[in-house]
């Protein structure tokens, strides 16, 4: 058994888990934050993407113990003070989700993508960078639209955040 401590969505948490426990299991089962989903066993689908120390990570590819001492943000921590993050708002505005299962991972990947590109995204780049996130409902059409819209709205803000 390992004792793991980390900051999740700004709150310090710790818990006991088996050494083999994945970060996603720790988040879902120990912390009860069920917004982070598991859609595959091979780190392909991206439903489990969270931010670890500011970077998008598939939380099924990482042991909980490896995240010890890290700052983790999950989908539940993205909106601040009841106000949706611009990427969340754009997914809603552009109908970028249907069943909602891939959505948390999509949004967490998109936030990271926009930050890395400093608000300068085009369709080809968005499609290419979504390679690690699978959606079966939307055909990606509206997800791409939502990300491009959020990126342009965040514009300079996204660039500053990246610096």
């Amino acid at each position: 058994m390992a004792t793991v401590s980390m900051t999740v969505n700004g709150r310090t948490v710790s818990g006991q888990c088996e050494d083999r426990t994945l970060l996603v299991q720790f988040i879902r089962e120990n912390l009860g934050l069920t917004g982070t989903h598991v859609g595959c066993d091979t780190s392909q689908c991206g439903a489990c993407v969270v931010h670890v120390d500011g970077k998008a990570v598939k939380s099924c590819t990482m042991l909980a113990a490896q995240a010890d001492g890290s700052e983790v943000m999950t989908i539940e921590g993205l909106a601040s003070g009841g106000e949706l993050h611009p990427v969340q708002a754009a997914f809603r505005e552009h109908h970028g989700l249907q069943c909602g299962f891939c959505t948390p991972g999509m949004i967490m990947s998109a936030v990271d993508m926009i930050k890395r590109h400093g608000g300068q995204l085009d369709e080809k780049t968005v499609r290419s960078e979504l390679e690690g996130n699978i959606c079966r409902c939307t055909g990606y059409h509206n997800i791409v639209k939502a990300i491009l819209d959020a990126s342009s709205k965040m514009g300079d803000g996204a660039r500053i955040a990246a610096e």
Partner: protein
Amino acid sequence: MGMEGIGARVVRKEDKRFITGKGKYTDDMVVPGMKQAHFVRSPHAHAKIKSIDTSAAEKMPGVIGILNGAQLTEDAIGNIICGWMIHSKDGSPMNMGVWRPLAQDTVRYVGDAVAIVVADTKAQARDAAEAVVVEYETLPVVTSAVEALKEGAPQIHPEAKGNLIFDWEIGDAAATDAAIASAAHVTEMKIVNNRLVPNPMEPRAALGVYDEGEDHYTLWTTSQNPHVARLVLSAFYNVAPENKLRVIAPDVGGGFGSKIYIYPEEIVCLWASKRTGVPVKWNCDRTEAFLTDAHGRDHVSTVKMAFDANNKITGFKVDTIANLGAYMSLFSSSVPTYLYATLLSGQYNIPAIHANVRTVYTNTVPVDAYRGAGRPEATYLMERVMETAARELGVTPAELRRTNFIREFPHQTPVIMCYDAGDYEASLSAAMKASDYDGFPARKAEAKSRGKLRGIGMSCYIEACGIAPSAAVGSLGAGVGLWESAEVRVNAVGTVEILTGSHSHGQGHETTFAQLVAGRFGVGIDSVSVVHGDTDKVQMGMGTYGSRSGAVGMSAVVKALDKVEAKARKIAAHLMEADESDIVIENGELKVAGTDKSVPWFQMALAAYTAHNLPEGMEPGLKEGAFYDPSNFTFPAGCYICEVEVDPETGKTEIVQFVAADDFGKIINPMIVEGQVHGGLAQGIGQALLEGTHYDPETGQLLTASYMDYTMPRADDLPSFQVSTTETACPSNPLGIKGCGEAGAIGSPPALINAITDAIGNNDLTMPATAPRVWAALRSAQ
């Protein structure tokens, strides 16, 4: 409030919980004392079970119980059923083999469940499952339906001699043969419709809870139709009587058909909860989903289409072999018969049609309805043949279709269906215009200058939705009626609850169903709640599949709204001492026409509940229910045009343009309809370009059982789509809705394959058109 009514592009009410991580899916549920399950599954595609030794596993840490088929039989848990009886053409009933929820004597596909292990944690359950020793005696395997029909093939079920489940036909064989014999031209093709794995992103899950004190069962499950699950679990599987069983399908992460069925795992988890005395949760992993979710398609067909000297179709003959896998899943028998061959007239006047369908057992995962269910298979035949025939006859694909379009309605086809309304010319013209079809030769020449091969292909599909008139499907063998129910509760403060038997797993019912009320009563959609997916809350329902929630589910809501409105008018007329016929409802008020008298909606509702001043003899309250049974199927139709560029060096196909022009009848929310089309197109393009399901023919191992091996469409495989609609209202339901959920997946595969074969100049190409296949087809054409 007109901004939120029928036709309004309102954003979805349900989105907030999904974008903030607050959705509640089955695997998110936690109940006190809950334990975890893992299934022991067959590693062999066909084997006798010699023994099951659980002694070592039972001593593993955390293990609570290990149960197998013998205990299931002790408790008289029933065989898994097929809900649609098909008779062979000789009149004999289908040859259905036995399917036990946990295999007892024989396993018939890799993944067949043999035992369940319940333990404190998932990891412990999995560890213990690995310690269960099952001794097998392997048997010969067959995975191809064509091979399974051959003399000497391994025999899978004693009930189905030669693995033949049924040999069924529809249409007029003699007339069709005569048309072919006297034709000016006959186009012949052999066409394979590739097997697919549905892959909703949420893997299946179940949580069974037995309450000993109440002798009551609750099942949380990833279901498209929780009421049907309750009915079947009770009436056929003998797990619990219906009044002692609550089935809840909370947020469900996509279905596409694969979550219609009541699988072994759900039955076993619920039963195991009583047997072990603890709540039992199971959540399947992705490879388990590949191995056990019902697959789709898997047809091999030969077709002959006859034309006269004027290029009019005179006959269409189809012979199909359909692989149903190792067992007959719930609706498996209806998919390659009544959901398939009844659409073989396409959008065309065809005087004679005959189809023969043989369904076959193999050592593969059961095959059942997957987005489109039979209609994509029919459309693929029809539209590949039309494009091929146009090439052979030396006319344009559009011209051949126009020559044969049905233009008068109603139109009775030779294969049961009576098309009620449509304008196929309108969708063809719209798609050709949107795609700048006439400008294609210039684009092809430009692509050639860059060393690329550009091709264009079209598909004019029709499908049957609004499933389905109960008496009609009953006469064809269905074991259930396919009506839908709804209840509308107006609360004392005027807010409204719609309870529906439809189930939303991505379709946005919480928004679109609320739009019906907003439009009708001028109540904001935020004041309307849609309740679904819980058998304790909703009276009864048949669920969501076959693009039926709009045409059938919403029609039931409309019927209930009619009753609510009638009573509301009476109350308002009474309160304002006016004539009922003078009451108009708009902007949240009930007004007396031509006067300044009005009663706010909420005040009328309050009056219904205070009951201080109601018309003489009226019951208090404002709540009405309705069942709606459709009088006909609905017939969405449209035209898709795809343009591709093939790299001759690699065989890689790039979709440079995809245009969809659909006629879905009346549309409630265009944004949601467009989303349904986008998703359907992606699945159809996935089938045509990427998704191949491969079994090893010797061992029956599924070689494509993870996202490392099975190619799911990703964002960079797809273009942005150009979608539009034309409209002919459906005359058979009150809203004029046809349904939009499956069209994209039905119409797109032939458009894409027609485009690629046009580009490479070789018509001999099998789906999925992967780069190696396209490259090889290109080389063999040169």
